């Protein structure tokens, strides 16, 4: 009996001694004190606790850098410029940074640990990003696998967005919350709602979460992010090319555009596989009747099933773009869809005389 007692006692006290030793060591080794965090060479640097990552220090100061993986260093979205105090570039960052980005001091904010005073540059756009509390206002089935979810903004209750921007919706996962990016499909003038369009991807964390949302459910997101800038020059034609869920930013762009400038020339090319994938056709037809300069082209890439009627285009969407657009007209283009589609459409648009800087795209 004494033997067992001794054994437990010895092991217990040893563990206690080791634990105390480690706690003391941590006090001295992991304590970096308060460090200064300077953003865009501002006058008053933030004071943050050393030892945490740059991403979480910024997050706790309400500066939301886009990040999809929750700081695990696997998405590579949280790139910002660290001009000094970031330490050496870590092997966990190099796969995500190009040579040019390395030369311009780009780092992954989730991997940089704050150990000393640190100086960073953040685009002013990102400083406007806020954390929103919202609730589901309505859900609409667009097709068999596509849903439109409309959120009512609660706190803050207004979001200023540029057409084509996106939000990062927080979705729960077994390993803690993750963020998934979705383009805002509601027009910019509806500033107290936000609408997204989500295709259900089997096993997808974000899409499964959003497809299971019911009316009234609370949702959090950060936003708006994105670098789409709509050209407001009346003589420039707008070309929107979307595939599948790539319709979301296009809807936003088109409705925002016609709200302000009813006579602008705009083309919408939408590519999908079959008649089952078609949505918004009626709404856009109604819009085209109100605004004669709005041209609407839907293209189906698969063969029609027997007995189906279709008066639109057939074949891949870039062929439709090639067929309908006259070359050498002042245009700005927005593309959103699968990478192969974007690449094909880019080639067609460049043949039509569009400059690279007038083409905005989002591959997913």
């Amino acid at each position, binding site marked *: 009996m004494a033997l067992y007692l001794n054994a437990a006692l010895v092991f217990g006290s040893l563990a206690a001694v080791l634990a105390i*030793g480690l706690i003391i*060591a941590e006090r001295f080794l992991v304590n970096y004190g308060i460090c200064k965090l300077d953003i865009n060479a501002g006058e008053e640097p933030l004071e943050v606790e050393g030892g945490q990552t740059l991403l979480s220090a910024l997050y706790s100061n309400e500066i939301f850098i886009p990040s999809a993986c929750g700081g695990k260093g696997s998405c590579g979205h949280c790139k910002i410029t660290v001009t000094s105090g970031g330490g050496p570039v870590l*092997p966990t960052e190099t796969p995500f940074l190009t040579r040019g980005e390395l030369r311009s001091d780009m780092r992954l904010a989730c991997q940089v640990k704050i150990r000393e005073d640190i100086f960073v540059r953040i685009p002013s756009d990102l400083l406007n990003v806020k954390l929103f509390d919202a609730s589901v206002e309505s859900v609409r089935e667009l097709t068999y696998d596509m849903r439109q979810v409309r959120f009512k903004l609660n706190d803050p209750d207004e979001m200023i967005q540029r057409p084509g921007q996106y939000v990062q919706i927080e979705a729960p996962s077994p390993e803690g919350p993750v963020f998934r990016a979705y383009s805002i499909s509601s027009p910019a003038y509806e500033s107290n709602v936000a609408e997204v369009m989500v295709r259900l991807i089997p096993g997808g964390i974000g899409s499964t979460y959003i497809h299971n949302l019911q009316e009234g459910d609370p949702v959090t997101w950060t936003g708006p992010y994105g670098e789409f800038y709509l050209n407001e020059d009346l003589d420039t034609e707008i070309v929107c090319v979307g595939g599948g869920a790539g319709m979301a930013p296009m809807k936003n762009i088109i409705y925002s555009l016609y709200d302000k400038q009813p006579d602008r020339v705009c083309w919408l090319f939408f590519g999908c596989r079959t008649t089952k994938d078609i949505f918004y056709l009626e709404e856009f037809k109604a819009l085209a009747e109100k605004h004669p300069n709005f041209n609407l082209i839907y293209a189906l890439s698969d063969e029609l099933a027997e007995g189906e009627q279709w008066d639109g285009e057939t074949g891949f969407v870039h062929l439709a773009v090639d067929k309908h657009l006259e070359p050498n007209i002042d245009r700005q283009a927005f593309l959103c869809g699968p990478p192969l589609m974007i690449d094909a459409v880019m080639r067609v648009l460049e043949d039509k005389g569009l400059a690279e800087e007038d083409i905005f795209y989002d591959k997913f």
Partner: protein
Amino acid sequence: MSDTSAMVILIAAVFTNNILLSNFLGMCSFIACSSQVETALGLGTAVTFVMTLTAMINYAIYHFVLAPLQLGHLQFIVFIAVIAAFVQLVEMIVERFSPKLYFALGIFLPLITVNCAILGASLFAIIRNYTFVQTVGFGFGAGLGWLVAIVLMAGLQQKMRYGDVPKPFAGVPVAMIITCVMAMAFMGFAGMVTIQ
């Protein structure tokens, strides 16, 4: 064995009784972390540090606490706990002073905890009835031996990149063969001194 000087034990632990090449302990991180000489050197240093100090502490715990209380059978669990705590400490030190090495070692730094060479060194020192000074020599020598082996291996692996290795042997298989050849080469030292 108690009359062999600590210095001899140290030399023997590096060459004739290399813990990796003659006992084949600590193979896992040896194979996995030997692609870069720099990383291998870092890991080897960390292992040597942990091995020397844990051998010393474990010696003291065994001879002053466990043996008098007839708790010798607890040595495995107690030694592992000491090693685990030490690795935690090393992790903090490395992270503080060399973040680059910290990330290069990745999971293999905490995995030093279960590097069997470290537990092996502590246990050998007990089994072979070393004195405290001999234990220090053995712990340090065994660590150094492991470091020598992994650095040699990393050097060879770096050269191997330019070699034309047959497809089925590329990667770990050829690393095993190299280890085998290295072990045979080290057998050339056998007979100079024996510490078994």
